[in-house]
């Protein structure tokens, strides 16, 4: 199909895109939904942002994010503490949901974006690129780090009256991670990535065809 046709995912309007794109949002003329964003330098920005995100993610998982002290007893919590306790008390579904939405999905997403974007930046399309991009798109709604941050803030308010709360190193790293990921989310647009992949697929086919003919 011509690459200048696109259909709106909200109302199925068939839209023709200009052949030269200006940076910014393209909206569906019928319903106003954002068709896609054209942001030049997106690959480089995503590359930089997700390296930062990876470092921040490791930091926030490495150190405890809150310390709670009451009557001389203190306890520390990091990301996996809650999962461990929930598992011990046989609330398996809660433990799994927590593990998936705050650790597994976000980390897979960061790693996959890096695996995809790093070779693209160096001018190569990775072999499993379609699978990476597909997985990224499918798991995105289930990563809920930003919601988790609000949860952390609410529980700080809840616990502050029972004892003293000491924010740990990882809380700062975590807050920074949310900002970085939020920015990454606003510039992430799969369309140019798919176009790069498609181009590489066609070139690969042409090469194979040329080889087969000798």
């Amino acid at each position: 199909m011509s690459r200048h046709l696109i259909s709106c995912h909200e109302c199925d309007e068939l839209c023709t895109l200009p052949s030269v794109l200006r940076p910014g949002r393209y909206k569906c003329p019928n319903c106003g939904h954002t068709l896609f964003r054209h942001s030049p330098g997106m690959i480089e920005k995503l590359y930089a942002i997700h390296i930062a995100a990876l470092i921040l993610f490791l930091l926030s998982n490495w150190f405890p994010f809150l310390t709670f002290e009451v009557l001389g007893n203190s306890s520390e919590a990091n990301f996996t503490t809650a999962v461990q306790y929930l598992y011990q008390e046989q609330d398996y579904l809660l433990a799994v949901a927590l593990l998936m939405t705050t650790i597994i999905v976000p980390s897979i997403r960061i790693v996959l974006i890096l695996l995809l974007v790093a070779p693209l930046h160096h001018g190569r399309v990775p072999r499993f690129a379609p699978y990476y991009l597909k997985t990224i798109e499918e798991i995105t709604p289930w990563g809920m780090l930003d919601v988790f941050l609000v949860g952390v803030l609410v529980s700080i308010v809840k616990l502050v009256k029972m004892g003293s709360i000491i924010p740990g190193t990882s809380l700062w790293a975590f807050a920074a991670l949310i900002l970085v990921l939020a920015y990454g989310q606003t510039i992430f647009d799969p369309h140019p990535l798919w176009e790069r992949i498609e181009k590489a697929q066609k070139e690969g086919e042409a090469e194979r065809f040329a080889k087969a003919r000798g």
Partner: protein
Amino acid sequence: MRAVDRNLGSCPVCHQLVRFPKQRRAQENYALCPRCGSEVTLRKPASLQNTLALVIASILFYVPANLLPMMHVHTFAGIQSDTIMSGVLYFLETGSYLIGFVIFVASIFVPILKMLILLYLVYSVHQGQTTRQKERRRLYLLTEVIGRWSMVDVYVVSIMIALVHFGGLSEIRAGMGALFFLLVVIFTMLAAMAFDPRLIWDTPKEHHA
């Protein structure tokens, strides 16, 4: 001009347009996307049925989620159990109005709003309503955006569990309410994903074709 009118289906993953044969039989047939290999259908199959089923399931889960305690606080003085509403009331009584409001909106208001919106959307599409399409589209976007924020309460419970763990002195455990609440969030998210917003813009007779 809609893409369907030209027998074009859009890939749900990579938005590639795929040409469908002229004699398409209703919405059941599918094609494979040449670019990413996903299944492409003209409309999400059985969208209304799936959405309705998932919404009904989440309504059923919503009842125990609110009635059963979210967490149990074990102290030497005994066990105290908290439901969502008692948590909100606690915040309001102690003067943390903002947090009380956030919890109320995220855990009580948002799930109900989401279920009502989805029920209305399914109903309006089923009735073949062709008015207020922009408003209905906005309602659908709202359900997609706010849906995940209901998880806040589940996270609060799990962080409390992680932090308050002092053996016999005081300990917090998760209640059944938290489990049901998690199911409400998951099922409303799945319901919103099952709904196909393009149905809002279709003309009535196509849905039953």
